[in-house]
Every structure is written in C-alpha cells, then in structure tokens.
C-alpha cells in the first residue's frame, strides 16, 4: 500500500461552502464523524483497517478488469438497442393491426414495454455506469464517460457534475448532497420544517412521474440561485445544455417518431410518453431506495472535511442501502440495487458488485457494522413512510429513521 493513501479535502479550493439550504438544524439524526465512529464502536485503528480492506477489494477487481467487462457491457448495449428498435417497430405495427382491433392493443402495449425496458437499460446499467467512468479504461470511445449521452432529458455533462462529484463525494451530507430532497422535498429530520413541505408526498409523486426532467432541472441548482450563491449568468451554460438536450430528446420522442405515423400521430406519441413514464417511475423507485430507507445515516457538514479513506468508506457504507433480488433485477436496476458497493467503488464495473458484496458483507460482519439490505417492497415502504412523516414537523416521540434497521446484519 502506498504512503499517499490518506488524502483530505483540505486542498479543495472551490468547494468549501455548503451547497443549497445552509440552515440546517442540529439534530441527533445527523451524525458528525466522531458520533458516527462512536455509535458503531469504530476506533481509529478499526476504521483504518476497514479502509485498507476496502482498498484491497477495489484493487483486486480493478486489476482483474478485462475482456469479461468489455464483452458484458457491449452485449448489454446490443440487447438495449434491439429492445429499442423492436419497441418502436411494434408501436408502428400496432397501426395496421387496427384492422383487427383486439390485436392492436397488445401489440401497442408490447411496443411500449419493449421501449420502456430499453430506456431503463440505457439510463441505468449502461448510461449511469459508463458515465461514472467504469469503462474509461477500455479506450473505446463508445464507452467513454465524457462522451456518452443517455436517452433521457438530462444532459450528461450536467449530470456528471452534480452526481459524480457532489452526490458521490458528499453522500448524505445534509446541505451538501443535493440529492437529499432534490431541493424541493424534505428528506431529513435535520431540514427545518416549513408548511411548503406539507406537499412532500405530492412533490414525490410529481418527481417520480417526471424523473428525467426533474434530474435535468436539478442540475440548474435553482435553490442556490434563489439564495444568491449562484447567479443566472453562472448557470447559463448549464441552462443552455438543458435546452439543447430537451429540444433533441423531446423532438425525437414527441415529434419526429409520432410524425412518421402521419394520421396516427397520437398513439405513437402516447406510446413514447408511457415508455418514458415507465422508466421514470422505475428509476425514481430504485434511486430513492438507495439512500432513504430506514436505517440509513445522514451526516453533518464537517463529515467530508479531513476525512481519511477509511472514514470515507465508512460514511458511504452507512449512507447507502441495498435491494435484494435476482440477477435480472440487479441488471434492470443498473446494479444500483448494490447501492452500498456502488458508493464504495463507484468506478468499478457495476456487474462486479454482486461478487464484491460478499466480500464487503464479510468485512462488515467482522466489525459489527450494519449492512442495510432488503427486498424492494420493504425498503420502498420505509421510503414512502419517510416522505409522508417528514411532510409534518418533527414530533417528540418520533423514532428517527436511522434507528429500527430491522434488516441489518446482526453484529458478530
């Protein structure tokens, strides 16, 4: 191991100010680094050991990258393109099928399903992971994080910034990780309550239905413009990219493809709309299950300052939750069902997370650390619970959402 393994954020010139709503209540549910370590009985030495072990898992898999990874992602891209072309084909095939009306609807529905699945694969297992730089080492321009663009409203250049940098560096730091609440919702007891959050469940529903547009607008950081931290002028390039991408993306789905069907414009447009909606609901569900189920910790502002590698790994582990399921489920979720492994190893090809999970769990068990995992319906139910509970002000006797982790591994 190299002597330079420890690094700190102290040289981070531009980014010492918190992002977004800076008025955070101090709250017992938001942990400082010391409180984190104490709560889970991790001494400095134990944290160091944990970090070294995580580094070793990462190094092992990075060194092993090769044909297996490249073939995997290419195969997935081929499947995705096939589903997309088939989906669009079936949508058009539903038009002549109108001659036999009982046939038209299933053909149309199959087209929507196929197109929706294609969009899910494109955005999650392919796009999200390529844009994390998981395949940059291949040297293939089609798999390059800087050039890949996904089939969604959000321009990848904007997303890479907010997601790879802010979310993955400041994971679950309330006030810095803008994915906590997406600037509109109250997702932490530490966010002060305001009557506007009575709409929490409504905002969540709207966001779920328009998730790709939501992600796109999220990158504009409107809340920081309102608070005066950013100016419209500074955000102009971001806005420009959003506009350009929106014209292309919506032009394709809601104008050009429907127009090809001539008088049957509407059924094709509707097909695209439903397919996009399908993708939006699924992506929202998976992504909100990554950091908001019960048992997931949130952190104070100083958590990322002077953090050792061990502490960083520790924070990523405590701030993420996994979903259980079969191989297909993991692929369809972009392996974000292995959110813990994704946060520990964001640039390792995601199809390896299942293998890495075994090694990570063993390590957690050794240190008596929680490993938050559960089936989708259970995890999502607690997310919905949180969204509804936080619509109202904190009440005495509320049990904070970082307790009651019923599905964590028992301490060894």
């Amino acid at each position, binding site marked *: 191991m190299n002597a330079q393994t420890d690094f700190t954020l102290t040289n981070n010139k531009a980014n010492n100010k918190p992002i977004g709503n800076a008025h955070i209540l101090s709250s017992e549910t938001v942990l400082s680094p010391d409180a984190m370590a104490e709560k889970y009985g991790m001494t400095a030495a134990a944290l160091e050991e944990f970090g070294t072990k995580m*580094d070793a898992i990462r190094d092992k898999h990075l060194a092993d990258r090769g044909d297996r990874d490249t073939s995997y992602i290419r195969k997935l891209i*081929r499947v995705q393109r096939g589903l997309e072309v088939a989906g669009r084909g079936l949508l058009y095939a539903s038009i002549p099928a109108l001659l036999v009306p009982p046939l038209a609807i299933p053909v149309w529905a199959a087209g929507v399903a196929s197109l929706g699945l294609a969009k899910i694969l494109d955005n999650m297992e392919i796009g999200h992971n390529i844009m994390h730089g998981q395949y940059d080492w291949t040297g293939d321009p089609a798999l390059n994080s800087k050039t890949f663009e996904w089939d969604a409203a959000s321009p990848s250049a904007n997303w890479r910034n907010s997601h790879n940098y802010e979310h993955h560096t400041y994971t679950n730091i309330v006030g810095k990780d803008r994915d906590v609440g997406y600037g509109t919702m109250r997702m932490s007891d530490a966010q002060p309550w305001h009557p506007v959050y009575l709409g929490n469940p409504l905002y969540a529903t709207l966001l779920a239905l328009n998730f790709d547009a939501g992600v796109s607008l999220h990158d504009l950081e409107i809340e920081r413009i309102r608070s005066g931290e950013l100016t419209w002028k500074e955000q102009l390039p971001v806005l420009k990219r959003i506009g350009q991408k929106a014209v*292309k993306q919506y032009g394709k789905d809601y104008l050009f493809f429907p127009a090809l069907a001539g008088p049957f414009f509407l059924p094709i447009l509707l097909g695209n709309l439903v397919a996009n909606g399908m993708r939006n609901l699924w992506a929202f569900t998976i992504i909100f299950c990554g950091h908001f189920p019960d048992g997931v910790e949130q952190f104070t502002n100083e958590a990322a300052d002077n953090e050792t590698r061990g502490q960083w790994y520790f924070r990523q582990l405590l701030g993420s939750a996994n979903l259980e399921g079969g191989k297909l489920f993991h692929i369809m979720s972009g392996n974000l069902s292995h959110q813990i492994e994704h946060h520990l190893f964001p640039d390792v090809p995601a199809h390896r997370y299942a293998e890495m999970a075994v090694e990570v769990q063993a390590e957690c068990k050794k240190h008596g650390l929680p490993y938050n995992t559960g089936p989708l319906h259970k995890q999502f139910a607690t997310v919905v619970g949180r969204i509804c509970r936080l619509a109202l002000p904190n009440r005495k006797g509320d049990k904070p959402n970082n307790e009651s982790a019923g599905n964590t591994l028992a301490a060894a």
Partner: protein
Amino acid sequence: MTNTNLTTQANPKTNPNSQLQGWRKFAGNELLERLATPHGVSQYLENINPLWSLTDIRAKVVARQQETADATTLVLKTNGNWRGFTAGQFVTLSVEINGRQVSRCYSISSAESDERVRITVRRKQGGEVSNFIADHVEIGDVVSLSPAAGEFVLPTTDKPLLMIAGGSGITPIMSMLRSLDWAASKQPVTLMYYARETATAIFQPELEQLADKQGRFVLRMVNTAEQGRYSNKQLDKLVEDAANYQTLLCGPASLMAAVEADYEQRGLSDQLLLERFTLPEPRIPENPDVVSGDVMFSHSERYVANSGENLLEQAEAAGLQPEFGCRRGICHRCTCTKSSGTVRDAITGELSATPNEAIRLCVSVPVGDVTLDI
C-alpha cells in the same frame, strides 16, 4: 532535412471532416440522425457490424502473410471511411487486447493502387501490440485505423533516389517501391538494405525479383554481421557519387544516427529525408521514486518541471484550469488523456506507462516525463 517524427503525430481515430460516401451519405442524413439521438445512427449500425461505422475507419483482416519468422503482414479490407494514402505514410492501428483498445503507429507496406491495405509488423521483444498481432490476430478480425498521416513520401525530384532501410524500416520504402511507376521514367533507384542476416530481411525475395526485372533499380543488401554497420566508407563503396542522390532513410535509431551524422559532415543534410520509425516501447523509468522529468501540456503548449505533486496541482501551477470536482479520485471529472509517460496512482501506488490512456489528474503523480493532451 525533413524529419517526420511519428511520436509527434496526433492520434485521430475518427475522420471528422470525411465526407460520407455512398450508402453512408443516406444513413447519416439529418432526419435519421434526429431519430437516432442521442446515440447516433452509427452506433446502431456498429452494433450489427463494426465495419458499418459512419465515423470510424475500420478494417477486416482478410489474410495474413508470414514474411519472415518474426514478421507478419496483415492484409486489410478497409470500410468506406478510408480515404487512401500516399506511399510512405503510416496509420495508427488499434486492436483490442483483453478488453482494452491499444494503438500503435505502423507504416503501410502496400502499393497506393492496391485495393487492400497491408501492414507489416515485426515482433518486438516485450511489444504488446506486435506480439498480439503475431500470435492472436486472425482472419476475420476487425481492427481500427486512423487516417493515413506522415510526410515521409517520395519527393518530386529528377535526382536519382537512394533509399537506406534497416530492419522493419523497410515497410514505408517497400510501399514506395511498389507504388513507383517503373515504366514512366529513367530515374535510377538504389536501395541499401541493412539486415543482420538475410533470413530476417523482410521482402527480400520480392526486392531481388524487382532488381532482376527493372534495370533502373539496384539492390544492395548489407549483411551487418559480415559487412559491418553503416559507415562513410561503406556508402562510398556501395554507391557511386552519393552526393548526386536524393536520400530517403528509415531504420533503427543507431542506423539513422550514423547516416544523419555522415550526411551532415558531407554537407548533404538537405538531401536527406527521414522517418524516425522506431518508437520506443513505453516503459517505466528505472527509479520511479525519484522526482524527475517534465510535464508537458500538449494542447495548451506549456510545460513545467515535475514537482512530484499530482497532475491536477501541477496543471494548475502551470496556469491551466482543468475541470475538477472531488480532487480525490472519486468523481472522474478531471479525467483527461495522457499521450505518453508513466504515472503513479496515488491511491493504489500502481505505475502505468500505457500511451493514450485516460487518467484522473488528481490522483496521478508523474514519474519522469509525462505528456498530457490538455
């Protein structure tokens, strides 16, 4: 003296200003591109057949020829994005080795008029790509090419031509000899061809045949084991009145240096056109712990002495403003291309000398000279 140095050539894999031709013109039309956004029509076609790319030059290996025990010729059928070449030029060839694209420059050895592009590669000890071509590239495989590039081409002159080649430096010269219109002029052409032993001399049988057939072509095989290395005396012995000739030179570094020095002494440097053919294999410096070398920023044309800090710090110190985010290897925002040199990963300690490699500036520490494409 013209010096076309392979190392300074960019490595463009795509052919951006190529005008699409034939069916590609239709496939790349505005409407289809709008329907295929954001991936583009080309990506869909490539999924069916990599040769159908609208953007990249790809080629299928249609034959392999064993020239000598350690030299192989790949016969390539290029796709419609190939725009031809001038004899003497080279291409950057990319192959995929264990899931990773690796590129090297190779001169083309075929005639300009040949329908197929031939690339002749000699196995180098420890050479990743040359060994891969020798052992693993099969008929039917698809490789990527850059557009042809390089200034080492036949000069327009009435002077007799003297070609001096050594080892695999024969390849661009072979392309010239194969492309020459022998009937068109009386211009004499002499080739001095250096080889350790005749069994290892690539194209020797074809060259001998050519010498038999064409009166104006003289072949001088120089067996260095018997006749020694290039010297001023040797040149005068084998070529009468060398001062009359326009000389073309391509071979190993030692041969090039000897000829260059001799021509300088003779005051003939401006009659010498040369190709620095032998690229050093990328290798890790001997003492990776010693802070040494320079960091070159090729795009912004700046350089600084290596300070031992990570490349992001050094780029900023040089007045550049590369993109960054976390500054600790998580976000990949600072990723850029390292064209050459060795870097150490500050997290894993791993050293990497791979050319044209994507690296994260904030966790890469240069070891010796490093060139970045920013």
